[in-house]
């Protein structure tokens, strides 16, 4: 399963047409339409925060509910740690690779869900630092054109 990062979703939902990545972002999402995609709970909350900030809380809340109800998306949750000690142990290995705490949380969820094959994000710096293969929407389009 492909997991879509919040940067890809923010570009889409806030219709950032002037962004140079817009066309590829939209095309990649269009091609993935109809297939089951994953979004981590942290990525979804990040998206809700951005939408609430720029177009209001009501829209952010509506978007959250629509993702929970989506037929095409699975929201991935982390394993819930029993203690802070366990949580620190869990995130420390990602923090040690230079990830921010937010990215470490995202990486934890990806690690806990073995069915995740690919992480779709524009943030190429995450490659080799998170537990799954990353692709930008542009790379995904090129890959799919070739195969």
């Amino acid at each position, binding site marked *: 399963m492909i997991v879509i990062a919040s940067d890809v979703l923010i570009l889409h*939902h806030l219709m950032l047409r002037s962004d140079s990545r817009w066309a590829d972002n939209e095309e990649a999402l269009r091609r993935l*339409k109809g297939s089951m995609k994953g979004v981590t709970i942290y990525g979804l909350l990040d998206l809700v925060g951005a939408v609430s900030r*720029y177009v209001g809380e009501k829209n952010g809340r509506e*978007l959250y509910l629509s993702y929970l109800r989506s037929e095409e998306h699975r929201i991935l949750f982390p394993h819930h740690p029993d203690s802070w000690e366990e949580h620190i142990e869990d995130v420390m290995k990602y923090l040690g690779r230079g990830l921010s705490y937010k990215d470490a949380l995202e990486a934890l969820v990806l690690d806990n869900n073995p069915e995740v094959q690919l992480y779709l994000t524009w943030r190429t710096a995450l490659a080799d630092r998170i537990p799954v293969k990353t692709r930008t929407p542009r790379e995904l389009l090129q890959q799919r054109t070739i195969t």
Partner: protein
Amino acid sequence: MADTVLLQVRISSALVRRIDELCNEGLFRNRSEAISDAIRLLLAKYSKTSPEARATALYLSGRLGRVGNPEELVFTPGASRIELEEDK
């Protein structure tokens, strides 16, 4: 006397034993009073939660109906400049 309804529910014998213990300690006059108090607490808990929190609980229990594709929900922000997180 308040309007009451006879409600038949199945509760594990272990829970009933605990409720009886509370009654024997004098905290409640009978099982009905103890269970009514528990239901009031349950209702108070959920009356304070948002629709999003309730939907999340339903989602996690697999009982939330699934319909539509949220990607169709797009917004047009005003003139404010939007900056995505830098690639780092």
